[in-house]
């Protein structure tokens, strides 16, 4: 099987606005795909790189999104402040929850990340000052050095694309680094990693924080793409969808997570145009995909 290159998909996204995909609908759809791809990418890094299967990853996305909302409510809309704040808030959330979650493993880790995700969900729902259950609508998109650049759909499209490509290259480099090697060793055979003198905890926690930071970046983009943040973006269903995108793309492959997210968004969109009962088709379709594509859409290759 030919090795699938994420560069192709990224190039397609770069060319899309010039190939007629330049309506409001197309831009919205592509932004959604890129935001989810960025979030799935960070989860793919955790699952494939560190063997940490989280079912609360949407909370990281949510923390990033709510950072944008809360700053917006207080009149802070400068990207140079908002973006680092969103990333740092999500990384900090990951660090604090991870410090506890990573002491567990297997099913317990899944359950505890789910629990932290739900805690974030209920916290967001109770933030009356920021919309509570109904969510919060931004006054405006984040400004860059005082310019309302992100209001420009084309600029926003390329910002999403650049951040997605940059995050992929960054996470890929991290997995190939000294740190990444230790991380992959703890995933493949923790006993052997320990026999080499590495205590897995610190490496896993660092990976968890890195994944949180990238998901926070996705949250920043999500808030700006929809100019809206709501608790539903943190709900466990969204965490499940992200995990599904990773598995659909192929665990152990960073580009797979991007491909999985893109396929997920396109399939969801196409089915929704066919029938309002699209979820009845979508579910079985996902099951078939897992059965017949055991290595995911990206195939056997590991990124």
């Amino acid at each position, binding site marked *: 099987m030919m090795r699938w290159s994420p560069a192709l998909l990224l190039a397609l996204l770069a060319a899309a606005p010039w190939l007629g995909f330049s309506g409001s609908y197309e831009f919205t759809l592509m932004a959604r795909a890129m935001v989810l791809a960025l979030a799935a990418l960070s989860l793919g890094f955790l699952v494939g790189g560190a063997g940490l299967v989280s079912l609360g990853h949407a909370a990281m996305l949510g923390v990033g999104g709510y950072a944008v909302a809360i700053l917006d409510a207080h009149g802070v809309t400068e990207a140079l402040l908002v973006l680092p704040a969103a990333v740092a808030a999500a990384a900090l959330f990951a660090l604090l929850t991870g410090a506890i979650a990573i002491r567990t493993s297997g099913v317990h880790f899944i359950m505890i990340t789910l629990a932290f995700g739900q805690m974030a969900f209920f916290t967001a729902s109770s933030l009356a000052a920021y919309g509570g259950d109904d969510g919060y609508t931004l006054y405006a998109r984040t400004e860059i050095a005082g310019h309302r650049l992100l209001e420009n759909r084309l600029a926003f499209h390329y910002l999403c694309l650049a951040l997605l490509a940059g995050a992929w290259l960054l996470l890929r*480099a991290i997995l190939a680094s*000294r740190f*990444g*090697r230790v991380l*992959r060793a703890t995933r493949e*055979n923790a006993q*052997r990693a320990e026999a*080499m003198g590495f205590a897995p905890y610190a490496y896993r926690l660092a990976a968890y924080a890195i994944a949180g930071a990238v998901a926070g970046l996705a949250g920043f983009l999500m808030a700006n793409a929809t100019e809206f943040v709501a608790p539903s973006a943190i709900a466990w269903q969204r965490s499940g969808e992200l995990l599904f995108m990773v598995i659909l793309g192929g665990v152990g492959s960073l580009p797979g997570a991007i491909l999985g997210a893109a396929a997920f968004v396109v399939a969801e969109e196409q089915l929704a145009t066919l029938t309002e009962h699209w979820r009845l088709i979508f579910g079985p379709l996902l099951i078939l995909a897992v059965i017949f594509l055991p290595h995911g859409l990206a195939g056997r290759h590991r990124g």
Partner: protein
Amino acid sequence: MAWRGAIVAEPLLILDGLRKHYGGLAVTDGVSLDLRMGEIHAIIGPNGAGKTTLIHQVSGTVAPDAGRVIFGGRDITRLSFPARVRAGLARSFQITSILSGFSALENAALAAQRRHGSSFRFFRAAARDATLNTAGMAALEAVGLAERATMQAGALSHGEKRQLELALALATEPRALLLDEPLAGAGQEETARLIAILRALRDRYAILLVEHDMDAVFALADRVTVLEQGRVLATGTPAAIRADAAVRAAYLGEEEIPC
């Protein structure tokens, strides 16, 4: 010069009254022994005698119920497994434990990484790190696995995996090696090669060797401790152990001790 001899003879590793119970079963029942630099100290005993459990307690993968482990004059009983490795106490496993998805060189380079700078480096590709590759290659060469460097570890032959496991222990730059049946499952030719490798290592390390292959034990060991039902039955030179009546009784019908 007697005073110099006394210093050299100071044991590097001391097990002092180790005990471990699993339920009502005393798997380690007051084991004391020591290991000196430049020595191969073999531990033999029938299946289930508690050899692996003893290695677990020395390496820090299992906590003893009582007793102490002294390494280099320091009580390390409460140190974690990886911390003991960093202190210079490396081990191999009875059931091969390697990183199958990594190449042989990547395995060895990673084992050397703890001794060569920080592991919290995030950007430079480890595969192009000359320091790590040099150290990893040296460990592979020490066990005669250099020509397999680029091969995926999972694809190596069984004997080669045992060699790699040994290389991984060496790459951590230990002072003492705890080897749990390094010859297990190796063929005749591979066994001969591994024995030659272990013999070459003796001078530079202190080696605690658990082994079922009696030919290997008597060819390699400076001292032998016989373990039975968690207890030390006898400790002595290979010749003394061979002659020991109690040992012969314990092994009768189990395995022939070559004379």
